[in-house]
């Protein structure tokens, strides 16, 4: 038996493994959620009907299947609560992404222009906060932002304000938390594109009469657009579904869809509506995900 034969089978199995993983831990659970989203609420255990019971035979199963409906999705479209939540999620994600871009781009640009040996150090500094639990870092912000927190103490001592400012439970605090948490996801793809850029292109631009500012806008920036796109989508997509940060730092007047979902599920115990909201969120995120995939592919091709 040749060596190739021996390895052929395990290799094929290894290739199947990721698909198996996706089916088992993504597609099957999604199937459950989808099914629940088409069911009706019930005061029962589990709290929805119909329940598929494979032991009761084909006829009962068909009857249960007939009970499924799109009512919950209709509700999502009719009730302002959900539409406003989705809108707020999109607005918060878009605004945060813009702020992240404005802060992240200069940082990534500065990192890419550091001497080679300092770039690794800068990269570490960007990644190090990840070593602390995300929740602990958000709680630390609560501590800093609260009524008698560090920020107000500093502002009072420096006589910048005369009375403590309310920071916590405001949109500002939420944006601060989001921008702080997602900054590395913006910086890293930007840094990856900017550090790969050929320095001689900037020299050529200068040689041809472009001032450093013009060279940036005419050469560096357009060439970094794939990185901008990747970074923006890498932040935008998860921020849309963000739950923890708005829940801990923002006020409670308007909710993001993640919070609404949580309320429906745990407080109202309305699993079907919560599931429908989750499925709708997923559908909402498909276009940006496809866009992200395209950008990634284009960048890979450009990198060859």
């Amino acid at each position: 038996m040749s060596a190739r034969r021996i390895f052929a089978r395990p290799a094929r199995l290894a290739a199947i493994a990721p698909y198996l993983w996706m089916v088992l831990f993504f597609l099957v659970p999604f199937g459950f959620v989808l099914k629940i989203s088409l069911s009706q609420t019930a005061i029962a255990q589990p709290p929805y009907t119909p329940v598929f019971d494979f032991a009761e035979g084909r006829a009962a199963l068909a009857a249960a299947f007939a009970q499924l409906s799109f009512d919950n999705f209709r509700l999502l479209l009719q009730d302002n609560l959900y539409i406003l939540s989705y809108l707020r999620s999109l607005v918060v994600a878009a605004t945060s992404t813009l702020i992240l871009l404005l802060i992240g781009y200069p940082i990534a640009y500065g990192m890419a222009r550091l001497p080679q040996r300092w770039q690794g150090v800068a990269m570490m500094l960007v990644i190090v906060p990840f070593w602390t639990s995300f929740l602990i870092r958000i709680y630390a912000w609560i501590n800093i932002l609260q009524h008698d927190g560090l920020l107000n103490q500093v502002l009072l001592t420096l006589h910048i304000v005369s009375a403590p400012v309310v920071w916590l439970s405001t949109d500002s605090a939420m944006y601060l938390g989001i921008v702080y948490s997602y900054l590395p996801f913006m910086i890293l793809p930007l840094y990856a594109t900017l550090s790969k850029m050929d320095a001689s292109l900037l020299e050529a631009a200068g040689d041809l009469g472009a001032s450093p500012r013009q060279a940036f806008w005419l050469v560096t920036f357009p060439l970094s657009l794939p990185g901008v796109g990747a970074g923006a989508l890498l932040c935008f997509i998860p921020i849309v579904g963000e739950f923890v940060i708005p829940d801990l730092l923002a006020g409670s007047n308007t909710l993001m869809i993640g919070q609404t979902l949580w309320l429906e599920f745990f407080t109202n115990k309305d699993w079907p509506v919560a599931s429908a909201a989750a499925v709708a969120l997923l559908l909402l995120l498909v276009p940006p995900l496809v866009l992200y995939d395209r950008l990634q592919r284009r960048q890979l091709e450009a990198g060859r």
Partner: protein
Amino acid sequence: MPLLRIEGVAKSFGNFRAVDKLSLDIRAGEFFALLGPSGCGKTTLLRMLAGFETPDEGRILLGGNDIAQVLPHERPVNMMFQNYALFPHLSVRDNIAFGLKRAGMARKDIATRVAEMVALVKLEGLEKRKPDQLSGGQRQRVALARSLARRPQVLLLDEPLAALDKKLRESTQGELMELQRRLGMTFIIVTHDQEEAMTMAGRIGVMDAGRLVQVATPRNLYEAPASRWIAEFVGDINLFNGQVTARDRGRLTVSTTEAGALAVSELWPPVTKEVVSVAIRPEKVKLSRRAPATDAGASQAINRLEGVVIDVNYLGGITSYRVKLESGAVVRSSMANTARLDVDAYLAGQRVVAWFTADDCLVLEQ
């Protein structure tokens, strides 16, 4: 006043002295080559002319104005980059127009100039292509057109042909020379390829360790190198170390351990040292089966070295031989294959006489 005057220019990177108090004049309309091994400082010098590096000392006068501290985008000088540095997101047309737009030229004039440049480098029909849709040769042309579009006073070319294959390189050399003559522009080219420098340039400056060691026409550089290092760097050469033992009306006798006493003509400047090297280019060493007739009637002495052919390399146009002398030294000879049938060829193992005239020898101080 020359167009470009480089005066005592020096540049160090840390402890490394890349360019060491170098002075050079370049005339308007000249095709000048900076030739040297890698790390000799030629690229650093070129980058100082372009403005990408600032000299630590010295002045760079362009038309009388010191431009040593002027930023690249404010210099009437353009550069063609070794890797071409074409903007990947711009079309051929926009690459060529880039410098013209920065100069604030009117839209209509830009279109005219771009069309003119595209025609000049024969890229018609490719204006809308992006650099990654072009072949290496086409990219080289775009880079050339882009750097010429602003009609710079001096065009700097950094190893412009290094990325092309041999055939394309040779035809491009001819085109570059033709272009330079037609435009009457001053070209300064940096290259490590001596053949390229000799083919294209009117004058060549040879650099070594940050200094200019010789500035000469290609012919003088080859036939009268200023030092042993240059003689060995530019082309092939046979070298015999020895001592001057006699001196008689422009004729020196140098006794060498490897090739015995050699008669050498003394040219200007006179040889002042006793310990010298006698150098002879391989193509000036002829081979024959028997010693040529004595120099009765000949105006100059002929040196004859007896030996055995140890190596024959047929290269098409020429055949190069290596002949081992009795002393063990090896003499290289290359002979043009002027006849199709190899009546004149020698075989390895054959006894021959390698001979050359006193005038063909160079005396180099060690």
